[in-house]
Each structure stands twice: as C-alpha cells, then as structure tokens.
C-alpha cells in the first residue's frame, strides 16, 4: 500500500503519513487506531515506543 493510499484511507495527507513512518510525527490515538484498522492489525502490532 502506498503512503498516498493509506492517507486517503484515513483522511490524512501523504506528508503526514510519511512523517509518521519516519518517526517525526506521533499520530493521535484515533489516527493510530485508524491506521491499524486499515492493516487489519492491533495498534500495538503497528506502533511501538522506545525509550530515547
């Protein structure tokens, strides 16, 4: 799936999706759930957090 397709699926811009993938932007909880639902997976399977 392309960034643009994912962005269209959840109502965000492609640039925001790119920023999420690059770790430069943390999506809201709602956006994270929407993204996970697109892939048919749980939020914790798509997102993880590491101590910096």
């Amino acid at each position, binding site marked *: 799936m392309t960034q643009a397709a994912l962005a269209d699926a959840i109502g965000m811009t492609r*640039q925001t999706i790119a920023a999420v993938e690059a770790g*430069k932007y943390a999506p809201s909880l709602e*956006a994270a759930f929407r993204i996970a639902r697109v892939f048919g997976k749980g939020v914790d399977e798509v997102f993880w957090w590491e101590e910096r």
Partner: protein
Amino acid sequence: MTFREASAWITLLVSVALYGWYFLDVGEDVIGGGAPGAGWMGRLVETVIAIVVLEIVLTAIVAARAGKAARAPQDERERAAGLKATAVAYWVLLTGVISAAVLVGILGGLVSTGRMSWGEAVFWGLNGLLLVLVLSEAAKSGVQIFQLRRTA
C-alpha cells in the same frame, strides 16, 4: 510540500516583500527626521490591494496544482501546526499592541505640546499598528512553516 504549507509560504513571502517595500518607501521620507511624504496613505492602500490580489492569484495557482488536496480539510498535523503558530503569533501581537499603545501615548503628548503635527502622529500611529500586524502574521506563517517542515 502540502497545499497548506505552500499557502503559508505565499502569505509569508508576499507580506514580507510588499510590506517591506512599503515600509522602506515611506521610511525614506522620514529617515533623518523628515516629514512623511504626501500620499503615504495612498501607497498603503495600493500595497494592501497588491497583497490581496497577489495572494489570491498565487493561492489559486497552487490550489489548481494541488487538486483535491486543496479542498481536503486540515489533518491533525496541519491543525497542530496552525495552533502552535497562532499561539506564538498571539504573543507577538500582544507585545506589539502594548508597544503601540505606549507609542500612541507618546504621540499624544507630542501633539498636545505642539512638537508634532496631527498628521505626523497619525502617520506614526497607523504605521506602528500596521507593523505590529505584519510582524504577528509573519510570525504565524513562519512558525506554521517551521512546524510543518520539522514534522515532515
């Protein structure tokens, strides 16, 4: 670059360029203690009209190239950038308005003691307020661009 970032760039660059030209133009008259040139208000009106027309034209061009992205509502990242920009611009505006109020008080004193004409006081007061507005809008656009670039 998203449509919203492009719009912010247009606002920032057009405002800085045209208002900068205006302030330099009228400033040449008063540098060194001279009186404001006649027709400065006309030049201000021309500047505002030019800014409005240029922003509309450039934004329309960018919107046409952006297609459906220009009509889409802001996403959360763009909204967050806008909120941060508004918060910073508010403080710039507040500081500027307080400074302008002090300026108006000083101008009133100068007019009442006959050391400045009413026309000169209007010139300095209006342009002081205009500068405050321009700076706060520039700050808003600048912060918006910075936030969008930082998270891009």
